C-alpha cells in the first residue's frame, strides 16, 4: 500500500525522554504532545490520535528505573499494550502504535525511531480509519 500524502505522526512523550532537534521530523507531519509523565497517556488519548488522522503513534517514555513517578513508564507500556490489542481487533494493525524507552539527550536514537516508523508505514499503509471515512 502506498502513502500518497505526507504521513502523519503523533508523538506522546514525557519531559525526560524527548527534546526536539532540527530535521527530526523530516518526511512526516508531526504533532508532539509533551507530558509531565508518560503515565498520563490514557488509552482514550491514543485512540483519539488515530481518530484525528495519525497514521502512526509513538510513545516515548523514560527508562523503567529512571521514572520520577516510579511506575510511570511501566503503566504507559501496559496502556499501549492494551490499545494495541484494540487496534488488532478492529483491523487497524497494532504495528502503527509503538512505545520506546529513550532519553532526551539521545536525539540520534529518537530520530532513528521516527524514521523507522515512517519507513514502516510504507508497508502498513495509511490510517485505514481515516480512509474509510473519506
Amino acid at each position, binding site marked *: 500500500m502506498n502513502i500518497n500524502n505526507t504521513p502523519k505522526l503523533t508523538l506522546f512523550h514525557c519531559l525526560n525522554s524527548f527534546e526536539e532537534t532540527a530535521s527530526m521530523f523530516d518526511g512526516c507531519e508531526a504533532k508532539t*504532545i509533551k*507530558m509531565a509523565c508518560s503515565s498520563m497517556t490514557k488509552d*482514550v*488519548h491514543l485512540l*483519539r490520535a488515530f481518530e484525528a488522522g495519525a497514521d502512526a503513534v509513538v510513545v516515548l517514555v523514560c527508562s523503567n528505573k529512571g521514572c520520577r513517578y516510579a511506575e510511570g513508564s511501566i*503503566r504507559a507500556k501496559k496502556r499501549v499494550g492494551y490499545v494495541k490489542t484494540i487496534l488488532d481487533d478492529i483491523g487497524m494493525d497494532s504495528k502503527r502504535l509503538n512505545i520506546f524507552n529513550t532519553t532526551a539527550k539521545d536525539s540520534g536514537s529518537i530520530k532513528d525511531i521516527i524514521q523507522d516508523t515512517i519507513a514502516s508505514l510504507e508497508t502498513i499503509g495509511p490510517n485505514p480509519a481515516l480512509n474509510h471515512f473519506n
Partner: protein
Amino acid sequence: MPQKYNISTNAAPPRFYPVGKYSTIEFRENCAGSCKECVKNKCVYDIFKDNYLHMSKMEEPEYLYTCNSCFRCIQECTKGIFSRVVNPEYREIGDAYWTPDVLNRTWYQAHTGGIPVSGAGYRGPFVGKGFDSMWTDMSEIVRPTRDGIHGREYINTCIELSRRPERLAFKEDGSLDVEVKPILEIPLPILFQQPDFGIYSKGVLLSMLTAAQTIGTKMFLKAADVYEDMMCFGKSIIPLVKKENFENYPKLLSLVDMVEIEYEPGIEKTFGTLKAMNKDLVVSVGIPLSADLDYAKICVDLSKADMDTLHVYADSQGRELNSDTPRFIKDMLRDIHLALVDAATRQQINILASGGICMAEHVNKSIICGADGVAIDLSLLVAMECRLCGRCMNDLSCPVELESIDPEYGSNRITNLMGAWRNQMLEMLGAMGLREARRLRGEVGRSMWFEDLEKESFAPIFGERKVSIDVG
C-alpha cells in the same frame, strides 16, 4: 444613605481552555472503584467536574487550571493512586516578570471575579525583585469593623485626577477669593491604558472601554485610534495627543473631560491652548521614565504649570527606559513623590504610574511609593485570555482569537478582574487600618522594605553588606 460603590461580577468562563498548572497522574489500574469515596467528587473547588464529563473526548492530557493546589485529592485517595504534576507548557508561558502564576491567576480572577486562593499557601522565596522586596504592614488586621470586604465601615477607593488649589482664600463677605475648578474623581485608583502590543481590534478596544465605563474609570487611548462609534464613551476616554497634533481633534477634545499630552521640553506653553478648546479639560502629561531624562525635576517644573496630573511610564516590567542598569518603578516613584513634596506642590497635583502593574498588590504598593493611582495595560489583555505569547507581533495568528472577541464578553472578564482587584485592595487597606485609598499615598510607614529591614536587623550583628543584592 448613598449607595456604596461596588463592582458587580458575573462568572465568564474562558472561550479557550487556559494553560493549566497542574494535572493528576492517576494509576487507575489500582483504583478501588467501589470505595465510593472518590476524591474527585470531594474536591472543594469542583475542579474534576468538567474534566470527568469530557474525559472520553480528550485528545491529550488536560491540565486543570482552576486547581488551587490544596492537595486534598492526593492526601485522601483511599488507594493512594494520585500524584500532582506541573504542566511543562505552563512553565513556558509569560516571562520573568509576567510569570505563569501571574497569568494563571489573572485568568482565574477574570473568570470568577473572586480573590484567588492558594491551598498550599505561599511557597515562594522570602524576598524577590521589584515589588517583592517590599511588604505592606497588616498590623491593623485585628479591627473587625474595618475588615476589608466584610467590614461594616466603608473603605473609599476614590482618587482625584483634577488639580487641587494650594489653599482657599476668602473675601470680606465670606465668598471664595480663589477659583475652584470642578473636581474630576474616579471611584477606583486604576485606569486603563492601550497596551504597547497586541491585537487592537475594535472588539478588544470596545471591551476595554465598556469595562471602563461600567466601573466608572477611564482609559488612555491614542486619539488616532478613537473610532467615530467610540465617541459615545466620551467621558471614559482620555485621548493621548502630541504637541503637533492635538489641534486635529477638536470634536474629541470637546467631548472628553481629560486629555493626556506627551511630554517634550516647553510643553507647558500648550496647556493654555488645550484649555481654550475645552475650559473644563483636565490635563495630564505623559512622561517616560527614561534614564536620559531628569524626570523628578521635570515633574517638579510641570507641577508649577497649569496642569493636573503627571502620568509616568516605565516599561512593561516596571523598569526604567533606555538604561543598562534600570531602576524599578517603586524607587522612581518615590523620587518623584519626594521631589514634589520638597517643592510643596505634591498636594496640588496627581501622579499616575504605568508599567509593571500586574497584580492587585502592586496597586497598593505603587500608591505607598507615592502614586495616586495606576494605569494598567497588559493585564487587560490577559483578562481577555491573552497568553502574552507575542505571536501577534510577528503577524501570526492569536491562539485565543482575540480579534474576534465579543465586547460584552471581554468587558465582563475585565470587570471581573477589577472586582477581584478592588476586593484585594479593600482587604489590604482594611488590614492596614485605612479607610481611604488617598490616605495611603506616600504612606511608607505602612510598608516594610527589605533593604531597611536587613539594615536594622542584621547590620548590628554582621555589619554592612559586602555583596550587593539585586532587589530591583
